[in-house]
């Protein structure tokens, strides 16, 4: 493809209304956040992952794994809603589906950026994932399927931009399938570890999928609201209806997710291994109680439910706030899940160990998380600037 034809495509897709000093400042700001944040992760390769991050032998996974899971789950959700609109058609969300495909790609980039600096030797992964694959490993399937998904979605998005609707449709289906199965394998990574009773069990992969539908809908509401906010423009009635549909999906899954969370915790208190119950204690009344009750339950589930009721799915500002809070709640929920699974010493009762280990993420871990948020915010703004017209056009096939 020549430079000329590329410029012709971008001339078709770009939104010149966003070529404002304010937008430029915001884009540069998030680029700086990305670079500075991810530099914290790059330091791990210089000074050692074990010195930069606060993970230990007993708690090998921390906030970076939960952040990776959060972005990956959100990406799956966005991709699924977009694919459903494309494949089944007839849904009101079709009009915003191009933006959802883009944001799904961006969210998975946020996830990859995080995991890329979390894993000690990613260069070995590139080689040995291919020449020495373990088909019994959930991690292998998860990585491979997410890689496949992002490849499909990039081709899909190129198809959308260049008007190759059929290619976009086919790749959209493959991408969504790969995303769903990757998400399922991500749940499986935790769910198939009998050593960790707080994770082990058949519910977790479904829980992850439910979370994807919740985070995906919340992200769809929030990003569409922001897209019109940065243009200082009112949504068209059809976009308004589309976001309202996403809001409905968000409400329904919010209920399902709350039910799943409730029963998941109850199950630890009716029997089963002591390690699982002691881990659940960490959330209910232990070191994760503030995270759980205030951030995950109140800010992430109860207040959004209230906002949705008050908004009657009409007040977009309120709905977007609900979406934002749900995403914050989901971020904290992933953190709580990852930490609670390892917080109880496996040899509790020996070596005078505390009931719960203490884990506080390091400044560098917070830096990487900020960097991943930078990736997503930067990607969102660039997307609106470069592909804005593609996101707002009514039909693309």
């Amino acid at each position: 493809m020549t430079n000329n034809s590329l410029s012709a495509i971008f001339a078709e897709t770009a939104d010149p209304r966003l070529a404002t000093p304010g937008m430029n400042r915001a884009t540069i700001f998030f680029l700086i956040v990305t670079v500075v944040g991810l530099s914290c992760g790059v330091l791990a390769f210089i000074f050692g992952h074990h010195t930069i991050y606060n993970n230990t032998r007993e708690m090998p996974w921390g906030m970076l794994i939960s952040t990776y899971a959060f972005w990956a789950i959100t990406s799956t959700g966005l991709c699924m809603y977009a694919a459903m609109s494309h494949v089944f058609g007839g849904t009101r969300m079709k009009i915003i589906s191009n933006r959802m495909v883009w944001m799904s790609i961006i969210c998975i980039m946020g996830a990859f950026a995080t995991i890329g600096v979390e894993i000690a030797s990613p260069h070995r992964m590139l080689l040995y994932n291919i020449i020495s694959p373990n088909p019994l490993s959930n991690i292998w399937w998860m990585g491979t399927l997410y890689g496949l998904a992002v490849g499909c979605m990039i081709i899909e998005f190129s198809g959308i931009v260049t008007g190759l609707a059929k290619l976009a449709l086919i790749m959209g289906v493959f991408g969504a399938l790969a995303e769903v199965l990757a998400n399922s394998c991500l749940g499986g990574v935790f769910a198939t570890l009998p050593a960790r009773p707080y994770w082990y069990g058949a519910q977790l992969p479904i829980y992850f999928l439910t979370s994807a539908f919740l985070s995906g809908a919340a992200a769809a509401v929030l990003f569409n609201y922001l897209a019109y906010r940065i243009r200082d423009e009112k949504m068209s009635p059809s976009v308004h209806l589309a976001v309202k549909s996403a809001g409905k999906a968000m409400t329904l899954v919010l209920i399902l997710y709350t039910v799943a969370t409730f029963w998941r915790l109850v199950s630890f208190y009716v029997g089963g291994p002591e390690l699982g119950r002691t881990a659940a204690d960490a959330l209910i009344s232990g070191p994760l109680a503030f995270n759980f009750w205030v951030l995950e339950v109140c800010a992430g589930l109860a207040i959004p439910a209230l906002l949705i009721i008050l908004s009657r799915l009409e007040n977009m500002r309120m709905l977007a706030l609900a979406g934002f809070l749900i995403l914050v709640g989901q971020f904290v929920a992933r953190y709580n899940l990852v930490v609670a699974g390892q917080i109880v010493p496996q040899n509790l009762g020996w070596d005078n160990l505390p009931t719960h280990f203490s884990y506080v993420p390091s400044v560098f871990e917070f830096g990487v998380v900020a960097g991943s948020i930078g990736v997503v915010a930067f990607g969102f703004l660039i997307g609106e600037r470069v592909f804005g017209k593609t996101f707002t056009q009514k039909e693309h096939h």
Partner: protein
Amino acid sequence: MNIEDLEKEINEGIDSLPLQERRKFLKMGLAVTGVFLGGSVLSLTSISHASNQKNADSDIPVEGQYPYPKHYGMIMRQNRCVGCELCVEACKQTNHVPNDHGAWRTAIQEKITTENNTEKREFRPVLCNQCNRPPCVRVCPTKATYKDPETGIVVMDYKKCIGCKTCMAACPYNARYFNEEKYAIDKCNFCIDTRLAEGKKETACAAACPARVRIFGDLKDKSTEIYRLLQTPDSKIWVLRPDTGALPNVFYMNG
């Protein structure tokens, strides 16, 4: 249906095409789901050749059911341990275990209880259990950790380790650590590349123990002490965390 019959059909027009196309894609989607789902299900199965332990009522493997030509294991006579940690030191020396916090291949755990106003101290030696159904091996994406086909020992191929730490999360025994020198996960390997490679019959920890707590050997070899202790025990034998189904090859007894 042949082409002539098709020609007689009434043209349905292009309006209905997108729906058919969608159906086609859905069918294709289902087929693809099947393929991926097959893979996902595969990823949940255990390692068949390593789970050949059918003695459901006991933690001790039954004769004729050892999957490896030499099936190495260890039995700890726990109440003999005095916590001198000579085993820990010998292991560090032999296997070049780094000195930094959190790096050990074997350790002695201690429990202090009070009975009738008397303080009771109990020691428990721990190391990798070289499981027959090792959770760490199943989860490794690059086969960087695997069961040695000759001995059943769980070993590392450091150059393949990506450092995802899933094996550390999966291990029920906290037996794995990050080796900063190798920049890979490391673990006890029953001295396979050090003492066993030199033809010695014991691991460094077993050889160093003054109280003969640790008895190491081939579980299949009838002439070994571990065989006698396991098959004709004087007292109860147990394993750690049997509930995880990992089928460990490190056993515990008092005696």
